[in-house]
């Protein structure tokens, strides 16, 4: 079963109403589907929110899930895409001891090579931010682990599709 699973990014355009996250997550919960990551934000359309959800599933199941999501009254449109069809990123932050920045030459190289960005520095710690693919972030994590990480956090995936999503047309048709 596992072998037919693929990573899919689900993009859901919704009304910006309270309680919708509950409705959408319940669809996954009922079917015992683990959400790999979830992000909600505004979208390119005024008053319309966007959920970006990453799951690993078989294609026929993802189709059904998206059907169930679209069925929710406050969902305007839902899509699913493979990794190849999207441009996607995650973002992360590392909090590290300030001494490292000044005393370990190697740390500066890592920061440069990884295109990580220093967000803030003070006497005790400094904070790095890095956006990219999961494996780049994981590599950075491994590199810093050797020196000790004070705090680490990673965001859910955000993604845009290569193809156009015809959502705006749908909404103008309503008016």
């Amino acid at each position: 079963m596992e072998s037919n699973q693929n990573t899919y990014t689900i993009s859901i355009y919704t009304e910006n109403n309270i309680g919708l996250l509950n409705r959408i997550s319940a669809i996954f919960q009922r079917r015992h589907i683990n959400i790999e990551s979830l992000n909600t934000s505004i979208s390119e359309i005024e008053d319309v929110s966007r959920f970006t959800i990453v799951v690993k599933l078989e294609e026929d199941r993802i189709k059904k899930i998206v059907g169930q999501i679209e069925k929710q009254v406050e969902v305007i449109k839902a899509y699913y895409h493979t990794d190849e069809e999207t441009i996607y990123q995650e973002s992360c932050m590392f909090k590290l001891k300030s001494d490292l920045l000044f005393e370990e030459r190697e740390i500066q190289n890592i920061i440069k090579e990884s295109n990580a960005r220093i967000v803030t520095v003070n006497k005790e710690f400094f904070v790095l931010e890095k956006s990219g693919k999961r494996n780049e972030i994981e590599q950075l994590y491994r590199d810093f682990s050797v020196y000790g990480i004070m705090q680490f956090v990673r965001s859910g995936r955000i993604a845009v599709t290569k193809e156009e999503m015809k959502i705006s047309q749908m909404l103008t048709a309503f008016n």
Partner: protein
Amino acid sequence: MDIETVKTTDVATAKTVRISGSEAIIKCMIAEGVETLYGYPGGAIMPVYDELYKYRDQIHHVLTRHEQGAAHAAQGYARISGKVGVALATSGPGATNLITGIADAQIDSTPLVCITGQVASHLLGSDAFQETDIVGISTPVTKWNVQITKAADIPEVMAKAFYIAKSGRPGPVLVDITKDAQFEEFDFSYKKCTSVRSYKASCKPNIEAIQKAANLINGAKKPMIVWGQGVILGKAEAELKAVIEKAGIPSAWTILGASAIPTEHPLNIGMVGMHGNYAPNMLTNECDVLIAIGMRFDDRVTGNLSTYAKQAKVIHFEIDPAEIDKNVKTDVAVLGDSKLSLAELLPFLNETSHNEWHQKFKDLYAIEFEKVIKDDLHPTKEGLTMGEVINQINVQSKGDAAIVSDVGQHQMIACRYAKFNKTKSNITSGGLGTMGFGLPAAIGAKMAAPERDVVVIIGDGGFQMNIQELGTIFQQKVPVKIVVLNNEFLGMVRQWQQLFFDKRYASTEMTNPDFVTIAKGYYIAAKKITKREELAGAIEEMMTHEGAYFLEVCVEKEDNVFPMIPTGASVSDIRLS
């Protein structure tokens, strides 16, 4: 609430008046044509009840004896009338008591609007007295739900609630309203909702799909229709009949599709599913084109999916896009309202008769008649059978009664053997299988269709699940006919224990009270019979009695319902004994 997302039309109350939120709720209901609602008062909904008192000439509130009864009564009302059923409850326990009825309405696509009171908005989330997160609790079992904390939101939310409950694939909507919003005054005006931008009720049938479907049907040698409740909800009975007759297609029904086409229609071949008829189940795995109309391939209908109708091309007429390919892969999907789709299909169909194919159904029916039906309807052994009781009701009502049933063996027997001349005559809990549904649902059904005979068939188990609604029947003078088929067992479970658990009758035997005395205690005319000779007379007395009537029939204790498809088996592995 976001005004731009909803399209509305003006109704009578377009001018604004300054009123309270609770009065607004009533005015919205009146504008939506609500005449009867079912409920139970309590602290958090008292302002609305106070207004109901003021409007008691315009809107009839029925006090049930339990909120579950209110929800089921509203369901019965909705199912027989095709209108939205309304239930009202207070916060906390009142609201949670509605949940079973809401879940039942969700899975059986019944339009309901449930209004619950909620603690004042400044107390939300504080574990206040009788506070529960009913929006959270009801989320997975509602088509839509919402909480109102400001009176000004009431008209738009109520309009949206009624529109969503009844349009597209109908379902239950819950509106939770805080007590302060009920008291708050605002400038009221009401506009009916006609569309919501994020919600597509239905779509126009796609003509290419219809033509494809017609081609498949015209080319079929062994076509078979299975219709479901979508036909009734879509008011497509006449269109279905025209299709069936023109194309000469043997047609079967799911439990909730029952009565859409009269029982006696020559192309009506009976019920599919676990306790359905032998022929349609067997021949599902032989037909070459299976035409599913307004049904969702429930597992009680399909049995084992991996062997279900594998040889057939499948055409699915369906209003809910999420149902397409959910359980059974289709070759042609026709999305949209069944009334429109079937009307569009008709002119493309060839006139055919499929006599030889139809003969196969008749032959298998003869086998089922010999092995099962004969003994159910015309038994020769001593004990009364459930089947002969239903048969006697058919005789007395001439097939014109609406039959409400509870859940268990008696339900399967009622659905198998009740004769239906008219549509919307079979009211039962199909998807959830809720014991306790029958008695309150019968109240709603009879109140919505007072001109019809409403007979409710209940087991001794299910009767005791909402027995308190006898009080509602008495107080409201609802002339329903109540038949309890008493086998002193939770019969359906006992049947499974007999067949699959070595007859270990764990906790299924029931020692029952004197039901007749209880009914009489509620001032309901009542009788108990134990012998065949008494049956016809008792049913006649019941049917001709002016008011409500309670009849207890002591039936054979360990009868079983056959045919039967054991769980997980293929539909063509259907057992006759």
